């Protein structure tokens, strides 16, 4: 509360400044024949070091071209980019969350990269399908993948052994997950089978969406005009979560921050989470397994991915060309491999995964990450690429949480959420 005066004032100021300031910087990139481009990224620590190294390598190898990187916290980058766009001096390249893509695509200065990534040698299909889907809005490619992750199950091997359970196999099902969760729960020891984040934000939603897909359902209709999750598949997915809530085998984390500590303290049996959490579990002897499935459906063990994009903004033909050239270099297999090995981030290209020795090398620094890497092959689809998705997500978040907290029955929650989503989609289309 104390600092928000300042924050809101700064945000308003930035917005106003962005809207009123006139562009003065738009042509400053060309000096003496060389081209200077700026890239906004939010890397810290090892990622920052590895990224700075790549940039210095590029700058050395390309005299006459200079890439300047500027740190911008990822959470705030779109606000800052918008301000800069209105001020007439956007960055040439910015790291932007994939969830923003449908909205980012509406910015007139965003460069359409469709022709760029179809050039020979780029091998666009080498990027995972989940990444390509998120970089594509209405058939137009607006970004190059910058980061990829996915959800899998991280489990505590010690707790499994204590409960007399066999570790999960790649063929496991949700009924096995639910049964294991129950067995791993021990109220006397304050031990839970699994955990779920319940603030009702997108983090509460994207843990449910793969269940919906595995059960054979979809979030919206293919044209993104109507809700499609109020289906038998949606009900099955919600019931799975509810079963674990009812049997008290789920630790609810309303803050989205406590669950990692609880897992690291050996109090949670299984977590559905991403590779970014692995490094904060030093105290647990953990294993990683892909997500369970619902037998008898075509959904399989598919998972969900939250890729982010590099987006180019138009600052004139010379700088756009320089930015495209740099991005293609940055996301070429050699650089992707270097960055993954240096940081533990999943490789954004498929061909890097299959490079000999790569998985073993990755696993040495971050045990279990190999399962997350191969799990990228289980990403079959992206969340709906519609500008209304944030609103849809808020509705779904309340739906999931209301069922988990026992405030509504799954079918009633589905109906009510579908009605709200249809309303939101209708009002945004019309």
């Amino acid at each position, binding site marked *: *509360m104390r600092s928000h*005066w300042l924050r809101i004032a700064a945000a308003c*100021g930035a917005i*106003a400044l962005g809207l009123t300031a006139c562009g003065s910087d738009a042509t400053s990139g060309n000096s003496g024949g060389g081209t200077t481009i700026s890239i906004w990224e939010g890397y810290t620590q090892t990622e920052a070091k590895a990224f700075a190294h790549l940039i210095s390598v590029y700058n050395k190898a390309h005299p006459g071209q200079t890439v300047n990187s500027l740190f911008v916290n990822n959470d705030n980058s779109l606000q800052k980019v918008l301000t800069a766009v209105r001020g007439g001096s956007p960055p040439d390249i910015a790291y932007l969350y994939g969830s923003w893509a449908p909205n980012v695509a*509406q*910015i007139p200065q965003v460069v359409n990269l469709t022709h760029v990534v179809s050039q020979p040698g780029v091998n666009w299909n080498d990027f995972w399908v989940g990444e390509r889907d998120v970089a594509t809005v209405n058939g137009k490619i607006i970004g190059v993948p910058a980061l990829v992750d996915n959800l899998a199950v991280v489990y505590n091997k010690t707790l499994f052994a204590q409960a007399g359970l066999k570790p999960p196999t790649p063929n496991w099902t949700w009924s096995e997950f639910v049964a294991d969760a129950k067995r791993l729960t021990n109220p006397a020891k304050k031990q839970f089978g699994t955990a779920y984040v319940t603030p009702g934000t997108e983090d509460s939603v994207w843990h449910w969406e793969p269940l919906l897909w595995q059960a054979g359902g979809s979030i919206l209709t293919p044209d993104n005009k109507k809700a499609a999750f109020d289906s038998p598949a949606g009900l099955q997915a919600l019931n799975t979560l509810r079963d674990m809530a009812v049997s008290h085998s789920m630790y609810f984390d*309303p803050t989205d921050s406590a669950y990692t500590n609880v897992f690291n303290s050996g109090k949670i049996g299984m977590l559905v989470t991403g590779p970014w959490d692995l490094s904060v579990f030093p105290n647990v002897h953990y294993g990683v397994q892909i997500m369970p499935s619902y037998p008898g459906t075509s959904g399989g063990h598919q998972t969900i991915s939250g890729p982010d994009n590099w987006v180019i903004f138009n600052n004139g033909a010379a700088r756009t060309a320089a930015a495209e050239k740099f991005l293609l270099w940055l996301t070429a297999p050699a650089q992707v491999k270097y960055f993954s090995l240096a940081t533990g981030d999943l490789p954004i290209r498929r061909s890097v995964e299959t490079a000999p020795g790569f998985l073993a090398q990755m696993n040495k620094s971050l045990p279990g990450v190999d399962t997350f890497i191969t799990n990228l092959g289980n990403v079959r689809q992206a969340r709906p690429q519609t500008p209304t998705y944030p609103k849809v997500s808020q509705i779904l978040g*309340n739906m999931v949480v209301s069922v988990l907290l026992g405030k509504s029955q799954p079918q009633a929650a589905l109906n009510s959420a579908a009605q709200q989503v249809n309303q939101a989609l209708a009002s945004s289309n019309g």
Partner: protein
Amino acid sequence: MPAARRRPSASEQLTGWAFVTPGAAIIILFGAVPIVWSAVMSLQRNNLLTGKTPYVGLRNYRALVHDPVVAQAVQHTLVYTALFVPGTMAIGLFLAVAMNRKIRFISLYRTAAYATMAISAISEAVVFIWLFDPSYGIVNYFLSLLGIPPQQFLNSPSQALYVIVAMTVWGWTGFAVVIYLAALQGVPQELLDAAAVDGAGRWTAFRRVTLPLLSPASLFLAVWLTINALQLFDEVYLSTQGGPLNATTVLVYYLYEQAFQNFNFGYASAIAYFLFLIILVVTAIQFRVGRRFTYYRS
């Protein structure tokens, strides 16, 4: 003969303006322009993305009236304010009176009371998240000693807001303590002595002498804390993100959600002006009512 007031010369006037201009320009640019601009935006459909900003008249304001989440947010904001402001003032007054004496280590106690103000909201939130954790928190442990079953706290739509109240009261009490301590220094001993001579007990003296003399400080705290309470954001953002089930969605948090998650900058601006109106009305009432009960010594 009294010297006639000399008009400053033109060059002096110019120098004066030269000194004032940079500051004034910054205030206008970062203060006045955004205020005016958000008024303009509140009449537009504006996502800041496309550059297309059609005027929609009062549509954002009309939508606001019919938005059930706005109604919820107003209710949460008012309930929060009604608990936070008196709570902070009462505890602050109690601690200030307790510490307004010469005992050993008093400066240590006073520093400790104010330390909560120096702690950042994020640390405060993290600490309270763990204190009130339903499974591992110390609060439920103490409740269990009293035979009370464990509570869900931040997981419960009916309790989460009260946890936020507790969190922020704790954070702001130090501020109230400092204000009240300063005001207590201004209560003259001879008045208290005179009251004692007239036969007033300690409680009567406190109620009849000390409390009225503290009234300007109380009015200041009431207004200041209310304005802050109506703009609650940080603690909600850091702990519950408005959940569970919108139970802690207050107006500023909803505004943030509309602007920076849903890209409805026009609608968010309308909510901001609506909030401004609420603050204006509440503050005006406080000053009106407060003046009647405030005693200023001349």
